[in-house]
């Protein structure tokens, strides 16, 4: 039994390492394709991330389960299919719709129906396409102000966004419904010189070749939607020295050698250019060559459509090699991010935290030290994974750890585990372990739900774009959240174990009280310093130290609440129980500041608006109030723990040390 925790730790490490094997594709090299870099959402990322985030917004999942084929497609495979084999992809039920009214409006199957292959939740592009107009109209009706959206409005807007993303994906590499794009590209390239000559002749009043002109313009017209729509920039710059901003979408690359979209629109009578501008555009209309990557992707698509696995795989490898010689850093970055995606570190740590919590809870009831040691070992392993993932994210973004709501959740969990391990190193009673692991698990669940919104490594608005302040103000405020939650969860433990079980011994109660007090002091310090640093940042940015912005106010409430608890205790107005009950209130206050203020949809910090969270927030606050009420109503002498372990005579266990006279000064 003495060495048992080593075996448990070793098992966890083996489990983690086994996840590092790169997946092997038996057929098409999807995994390799997923490593190809592109620019989307303003940042460089592997195709894999782009595909995952797209599917996440369409289906709430990072993979595509096909119940007919009884297999799960990775995001990249699904995306490749949408781009290259739309006939197959369009029949897959990729769109998740939950709102019954919306299903009714679009006349979709409401319930599962095995015979027709309907599950009542997922629908295919083919099923939705006839309702495209309807979805647009319904979306137009949604009020502009996001805080006034009903659940139905949100469902419609989500579907419109999902359909838009899907349409974008279909037209990422070539115009939809194209076969043999390589041959078409060759013909287009060949048509450019004669077409441009015809345009020049026409401009200078010479006789011109109408057919040549129309020929090239027809191609251009076909490609115009690709250049005007939002799409991932998958074509790299011509030269590696060119700045990042030179990445292009296929639509732009198609127009590079010949006629510009503006000139085309002028010829179509959609633009009102001056004669001089018109003349300039015609003079500039080049006779250059198409970017080779466009052809490369066209050949890949062709090979894929015709099922030539070896050709496709070879083309993907070649593309990676070609890029590797000139865009080495980009490829490295993209492939690291793909490894990070595949490994799913936060999921892994979540599992470890749960197991660790069970071990530490077992310790209070059995007092066998191996359970505590196992919990400790597992949490250390999870903490290392958690930290490594945090650092990887920072490296990918080039930013301090907290940049949005998602990363704040990750960081609050991380801070809690850190605090828990620190407490454990002092007390060795599994309390720090249990609290840290529960909080980490809960915040990682929150983070997972936030990640459904799309890319979590998004670029930041200009105002927030200052690493110094992100590293100080945001990190310290978030640590303040962490510490306040930690104290609150310790206090929860005190009440729940005390009222409902026999596990709260006198020693444990005393220990908990001291931990809560110490962590509260730290929480007050961190929230205060963090809040004030935010004030200084605001003063530097727009000359206003304090603007009563909802998020600022939320942080202020945390500071005031913690200060109130400390003063109440110093004044001897509450005893041990009161201290814990007030500290549980800190959970509500912190949740309000962290999430509630964003739900108002006003102010400078309303960057993460989501109202599904509203009900969770209310539910969480309600549970906290119930526990506070339970601790308040049940007299402490009747708590199960205190009936089992009555205070020894002479020790005043319920009164934490306090000076007899109030002396806050």
């Amino acid at each position: 039994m003495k060495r048992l925790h080593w075996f448990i730790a070793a098992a966890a490490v083996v489990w983690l390492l086994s996840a590092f094997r790169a997946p092997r594709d038996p057929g098409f090299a999807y995994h390799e394709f997923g490593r190809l870099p592109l620019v989307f959402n303003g940042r460089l990322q592997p195709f894999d991330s782009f595909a995952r985030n797209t599917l996440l917004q369409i289906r709430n999942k990072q993979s595509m389960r096909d119940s007919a084929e009884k297999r799960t497609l990775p995001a990249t495979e699904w995306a490749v299919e949408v781009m290259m084999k739309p006939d197959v992809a369009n029949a897959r039920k990729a769109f998740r719709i939950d709102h019954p009214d919306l299903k009714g409006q679009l006349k979709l199957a409401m319930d599962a129906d095995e015979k027709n292959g309907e599950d009542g939740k997922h629908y295919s592009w083919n099923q939705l396409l006839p309702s495209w107009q309807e979805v647009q109209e319904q979306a137009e009706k949604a009020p502009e102000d996001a805080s006034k959206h009903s659940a139905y409005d949100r469902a419609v807007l989500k579907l419109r966004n999902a359909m838009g993303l899907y349409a974008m994906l279909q037209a990422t590499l070539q115009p939809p419904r194209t076969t043999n794009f390589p041959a078409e590209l060759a013909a287009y390239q060949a048509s450019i010189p004669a077409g441009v000559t015809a345009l020049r002749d026409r401009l200078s009043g010479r006789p011109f070749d109408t057919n040549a002109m129309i020929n090239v313009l027809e191609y251009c017209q076909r490609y115009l939607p690709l250049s005007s729509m939002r799409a991932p920039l998958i074509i790299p710059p011509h030269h590696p020295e060119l700045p990042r901003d030179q990445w292009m979408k296929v639509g732009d690359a198609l127009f590079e050698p010949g006629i510009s979209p503006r000139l085309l629109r002028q010829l179509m009578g959609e633009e009102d250019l001056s004669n001089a501008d018109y003349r300039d555009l015609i003079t500039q209309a080049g006779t250059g060559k198409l970017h080779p990557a466009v052809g490369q992707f066209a050949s890949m698509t062709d090979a894929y459509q015709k099922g030539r696995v070896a050709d496709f795989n070879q083309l993907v490898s070649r593309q990676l090699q070609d890029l590797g010689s000139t865009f080495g850093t980009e490829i490295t970055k993209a492939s690291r991010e793909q490894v990070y995606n595949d490994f799913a570190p936060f999921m892994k740590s979540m599992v470890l935290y749960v197991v660790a919590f069970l071990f530490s809870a077992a310790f209070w009831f059995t007092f066998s030290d191996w359970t505590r040691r196992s919990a400790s070992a597992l949490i250390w392993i999870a903490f290392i994974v958690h930290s490594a993932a945090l650092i990887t994210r920072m490296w990918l973004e080039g930013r301090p750890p907290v940049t949005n709501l998602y990363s704040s959740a990750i960081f609050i969990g991380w801070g809690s585990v850190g605090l828990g391990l620190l407490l454990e190193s002092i007390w060795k009673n599994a309390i720090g372990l249990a609290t840290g692991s529960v909080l980490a698990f809960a915040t990682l669940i929150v983070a997972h739900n936030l990640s459904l919104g799309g890319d979590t490594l998004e670029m930041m608005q200009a105002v927030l774009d200052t690493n110094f302040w992100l590293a100080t103000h945001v990190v310290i405020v978030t640590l303040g959240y962490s510490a306040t939650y930690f104290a609150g969860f310790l206090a929860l433990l005190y009440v729940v174990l005390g009222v409902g079980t026999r596990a709260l011994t006198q020693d444990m109660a005393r220990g908990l009280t001291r931990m809560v007090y110490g962590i509260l002091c730290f929480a007050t310090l961190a929230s205060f310093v963090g809040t004030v640093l935010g004030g200084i940042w605001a003063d530097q940015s727009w000359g206003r130290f304090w603007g009563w912005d909802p998020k600022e106010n939320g942080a202020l409430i945390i500071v005031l609440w913690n200060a109130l608890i400390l003063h109440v205790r110093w004044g001897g107005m509450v005893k041990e129980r009161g201290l814990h009950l007030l500290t549980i209130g800190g959970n509500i206050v912190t949740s309000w500041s962290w999430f509630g203020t964003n739900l108002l949809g006003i102010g400078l910090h309303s960057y993460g608006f989501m109202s599904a969270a509203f009900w969770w927030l209310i539910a969480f606050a309600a549970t906290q109030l119930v526990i506070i009420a339970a601790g308040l109503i049940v007299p402490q002498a009747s708590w199960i723990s205190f009936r089992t372990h009555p205070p020894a005579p002479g020790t005043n266990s319920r009164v934490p040390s306090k000076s007899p006279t109030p002396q806050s000064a």
Partner: protein
Amino acid sequence: MVAHMLVRAFNFLASLRLTVALLAMSIVLVFFGTLGQVNLGLYEAQERYFKSWLVLWQPVSSLPIPVPLPAGYLLGTSLLVNLLAAHFKRFKFTWKKSGILLTHVGIILLLVGQLATDMFATESYLRLTEGQTRNYSEGQRETELAIVDVTDAGNDKVIVFPESRIQRGATLSHPNLPFRLGVKEYAANSDLRPRGPQSGGEPQAPAGIATRFTFSPEATTAAMNSRNVPFAIVDVEDPQGSTPPNRWVVSPYASDEALRISIERSFRRKLGPEMTSALVGTLARPQEFSFANRRFQIALRPTRYYTGHALELLSFKHDKYIGTDKPKDFRSRVRLHDPAVGRPREIDIYMNNPLRHAGLTYFQAGFDEMDPNARTTILQVVQNPSWLAPYFGCVVVGVGMTVQFLIHLVAFSVRKSRPAAPSVPAPAAA
């Protein structure tokens, strides 16, 4: 007896129970003040909940049963008094409590600093298009009725009346003005619609913008992204009564460049370019009249803050993240002309890099988002003589809390390392 009561009152003011009660009330106030912003907007909520002594809080918005709550000034002042009294009563310097003392000194600094900011700071905006030079900034919501004597070229004399004095039926006069102003009509928010030659009825005034537009009152707005645009009908009256009154319609729709541009954009779509330029031309033309052989202009304009120096916008740059509309960076290159400094100098103003000059701070606040060429910058101009107070306050509190925290930590680890102390009471805080 009286002495006894005074002692009791003082003890109450210095008590920790009062501190706790005030902290609790502050939490309630900040919470309701935040919620209030949803309906009232940030500015109005701030005025009602934080920049006042009492606030009438309405628990149910449909029921007019207001509950009075202590507002920001009352709570701030009370906390200050409580803190000072407590220190006065119990002040005894020991190293063990030095951190707490420092913390409270810092909090006093913060409270006083915030009060001073509320009282003395002004915020205004400077809108500049590339090539433009200005020596004044403008208030965002305050307006003023300005009478400018333009008789001597190059030496304008300006007399202004704040908007708060403009009420229907009010009469405004000034010793340096040969006439009185009678306010016939006023609305805090308004709308305007164009008036063609065939529109029926009399125009609201015989000359100026009223010939082309009709103004009508609107409900006031509190939303963050919209603003109130007032209008007034004013008679220029001869105190002797020898000349008949001269009527004018005044409104920031005419005097505020940003508003004029937005009107121009919305009209251009509906009415076409020619009609629009005729209409907007009327709005832009100063409304001028003569009285007693002097020439005057009349306008209801955003309150102006003359700066004593001038800023010229050389260029404005706005970068977005590639393939998105997310702003990445925006910055203004300006030239500062200040006779007191000598040669003009050039400065870049961008996010987190303001220009501080002559007691004013210029921040990059925004730009004209409707302008496709993005050539117009918007700078926020702040004058706040007490801007350094929170910096000192924070440092003092931060140091104080850290010191106190370390004192406890050291004491704790010393006790922890002593083996023969099985049940140590929790660390005494204060």
